[in-house]
C-alpha cells in the first residue's frame, strides 16, 4: 500500500514538473548540448560548421590573449569576492544591531543593487574623472595627485572592482540579514548567562551559525564574478592596453565580433567547467552543513 502511494505521488510530481521540464529541455538542454557539439567545429555563424576536432582547444593553448583574459578574470574574482563577503557581513551586523537610522542604512546599501548596469557604470565613470570627478577633487583637497583611474594599467581593474562591490553588495547584505534574524535570541541570552563576551558570542554563535550563508554568498559571488562582462565593457572596453579584458569579453569578441563561434564556444566551455567546480563545491558544503544541523 505504502509503495503504491509513493508511486502515485512521484507520478503526480512529474506531471506538475512536466511543463517546466519541457521548457527546460527546449530552451536550455538542447541548446546546451548543441553548444557542446560546437566546440569541435569551426563555424562563422552564417556558413556550415566544419569539424576540426580539438582544433579550438589547441588554438586556445597557444592564444596569449585567452590566457591573459583568464588571468584578468581570476584577478577580478580575487579582488572582488573577499571585500563583498567581509563587508556585507559587517554591514549586516551593523544594520542588525541597535543603532539609529537602521532603515535608512538598509535602504542606502540596497538601493545601488536596483540600478541598471549602465547607470552604475556611467555614474562611476564620472566619479573617476581625474579632473572633474568627485574622487579626484577629494584627493586634490588632501594634497594628493588625482589618478586617471580608467586609463591607468594598475588602477583600471581596482576601479571596476570598487564599482562592482558598491553595486552588488546590497544583495549579500540582505542574505546575511536574513541569516542573522534566524539565529534565536535565546542562544545569546544563554551565552550571556554563562558570561560570554561579545567576542565569544561573535565567534562561537554568530559566525558558525551563519555557515550556510557564508557558503552561499561566497560561491554565488565567485560564480557571478567569473562572468564579469558589463562593467568592463562599458567602463574600459577591456583597456588600457587590454589590461581589463576578461574571459567573457574575449568570448564575446571572438564569437560575435570576429565570427569564430566554435572557438568562443570552446572558451565558454572552459569557463563553464570552472564554474561547475564551484557549484559542486557549494552543493557539497551546503549538504554537509545541513547534515550538521540535523545532528
Amino acid at each position: 500500500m505504502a509503495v503504491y502511494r509513493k508511486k502515485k505521488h512521484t507520478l503526480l510530481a512529474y506531471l506538475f514538473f512536466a511543463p517546466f521540464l519541457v521548457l527546460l529541455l527546449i530552451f536550455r538542454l538542447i541548446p546546451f548540448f548543441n553548444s557542446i557539439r560546437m566546440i569541435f567545429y569551426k563555424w562563422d555563424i552564417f556558413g556550415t560548421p566544419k569539424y576540426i576536432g580539438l582544433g579550438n582547444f589547441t588554438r586556445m593553448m597557444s592564444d596569449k590573449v585567452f590566457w591573459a583574459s583568464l588571468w584578468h578574470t581570476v584577478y577580478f574574482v580575487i579582488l572582488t569576492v573577499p571585500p563583498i563577503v567581509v563587508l556585507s557581513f559587517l554591514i549586516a551586523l551593523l544594520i542588525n544591531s541597535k543603532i539609529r537610522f537602521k532603515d535608512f542604512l538598509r535602504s542606502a546599501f540596497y538601493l545601488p543593487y536596483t540600478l541598471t548596469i549602465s547607470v552604475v557604470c556611467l555614474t562611476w565613470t564620472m566619479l573617476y574623472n581625474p579632473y572633474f570627478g568627485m574622487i579626484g577633487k577629494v584627493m586634490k583637497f588632501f594634497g594628493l595627485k588625482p589618478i586617471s583611474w580608467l586609463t591607468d594599467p594598475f588602477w583600471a581593474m581596482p576601479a571596476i572592482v570598487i564599482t562592482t562591490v558598491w553595486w552588488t553588495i546590497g544583495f549579500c547584505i540582505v542574505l546575511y540579514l536574513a541569516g542573522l534574524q534566524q539565529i534565536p535570541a535565546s542562544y545569546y541570552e544563554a551565552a550571556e548567562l554563562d558570561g560570554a563576551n561579545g567576542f565569544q558570542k561573535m565567534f562561537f554563535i554568530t559566525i558558525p551559525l551563519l555557515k550556510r550563508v557564508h557558503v552561499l554568498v561566497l560561491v554565488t559571488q565567485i560564480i557571478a564574478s567569473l562572468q564579469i562582462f558589463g562593467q568592463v565593457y562599458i567602463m574600459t572596453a577591456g583597456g588600457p592596453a587590454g589590461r581589463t579584458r576578461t574571459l567573457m569579453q574575449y568570448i564575446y569578441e571572438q564569437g560575435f565580433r570576429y565570427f569564430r563561434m566554435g572557438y568562443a564556444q570552446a572558451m565558454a566551455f572552459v569557463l563553464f567547467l570552472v564554474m561547475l567546480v564551484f557549484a559542486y563545491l557549494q552543493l557539497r558544503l551546503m549538504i554537509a552543513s545541513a547534515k550538521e544541523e540535523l545532528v
Partner: protein
Amino acid sequence: MKRLLVVTLLLAFGLLALAKTTITVWTFFSGGEGFLVTELIKRFNAENPDIEVIEQIVEWGQLYNKLTTAIAAGDPPDVSVMHLVLVPDYASRGALTALDNYISKETLQDYVPEIAAKARYDGKLYAVPFDTHPLVLYYNKKLLKEAGLVDAKGEVLVPKTWDELLSYAKQAKEKLGLEVGISSEIGAMMGDRLFIAYYTQLGGQIYDEKTKTLKFDLEKVKKTYEFMSNLYTSGVMKPMTYDTAESLFQNNQSPFHFNGVWVMAVYPTLEGLQFGVTNLPAIAGSKPYTWGDSHTWVIPKKPKDDPAKIAAAAKFIEWFAKNAAEWAKAGHLPVLKSVLNSEAFLGLPMRKDYAHVAEFVVPAPSVKGWLEVRIKMWEIGEAVILGKMTPDAAAKELVNFAKQVLED
C-alpha cells in the same frame, strides 16, 4: 451577421496590406540623432503611399549581435543600418544582398569616390552609405586668444601642420597653466583613428591592391608610433578616457581636442564654449588625410529573395541618402556630392569649416577581419602611449598581427 462583418473587415485589411509593401528597418540611433531618422522616415512614408517603412530601434551595443543571429536564423529585417567598416565582414560571408541592380547610376556617380569604393566588396555593391564621420580637430578660441595665439588681425591661429599644432598646444598649456595641450581618448581615437590619419599622411597604405590583402609598412608604422609616443612624453597630451577628454574641452581646460564630427550635434549648443572646427593638421607636403567611417544601409540576405520587397527597400535607402542634408544636422557629412554642396547642408552652423574634410577621408580597408586588427590597434596604441611598449616593438606586433589574422 457578425461573422460576415469579421470576414469583410479581414478582407479589407488584407487588400490594404496588399497595396502597401511594408519594410522593416533596424537602426541604433537615439536621442537627437534618432529623432532625425524618425522624421525622415515619416517624410518618406508620406511621399510614397505604396511603401510603408517601419523603424525598429535596437540598442546601439546590441544591433550587430541581433542582426547576426537574425540573418543566421533566416529572419532579418528588410533593411538595417551598418557601419561601413563592417560591410566586408558580412558581405564576404554571403549575409548581404548585392544592390547593383537596384540603385540608380546617377546616385552612384554622385558619391565621394573613396566612400563609394568601400561600399563594394569583391566588385559588388553591398551598402548605401548616407554619411561619413571623420576625425577632425577642434580648437578653443577663448583659450588660444588668452595664450596670445592670434595673427595681426586678432584672429586665432589655426594649425596647418603637426609641428604648428604641437607648438601652439605647448604654448597655450604652459601660458595658461593647463593640464593638457590637446585632449583625446587613448583607445579608438588615438590607436585607430589618429593612427590611420598620420600613417596615411606619411604615404602609408593599409591595403595592398596587388595581393588584395592587408599590408602595413613597418617603417611608417614605427614612425607613426614614435609620433604618438612623443605627444605623451612631451607632456602635451595625457592618457584619458573619452568622457574626460570631452569634459576638458567643454570646460575650457584644453585648447585642442581630437574627436569625430558627431559632437557637432552638441558642442554648438554649449554656452560658454567658443570653439572652431577644422581638418586635422598635415605633414608638410601631404594632404590632411583623416580617418572616417560611414553609416550605411544594407539589405540583409533572406532564405528567399522577394524582388518587390528588395526594390522597395532600395528605393527607401537611395531616397534617404539623397535627403541626408537633414540627417547632417547630427554633425555628420553627407556623402553625395550634390548634398555636400547644397545650401541646405552648408547653411548649417560651421559646416563650411569642415565640409572639405570629406575629400580627405580614409575609410578602413575593405577586408575581412579588419575589426580584429582594429581592436589590436587600440591595444597597441594604448601600450605605446602608456610607455609599456616601444614604437619599434609596437610596429612589429601590429604588422605580424595583421598577417596572422589574414591567415586565419
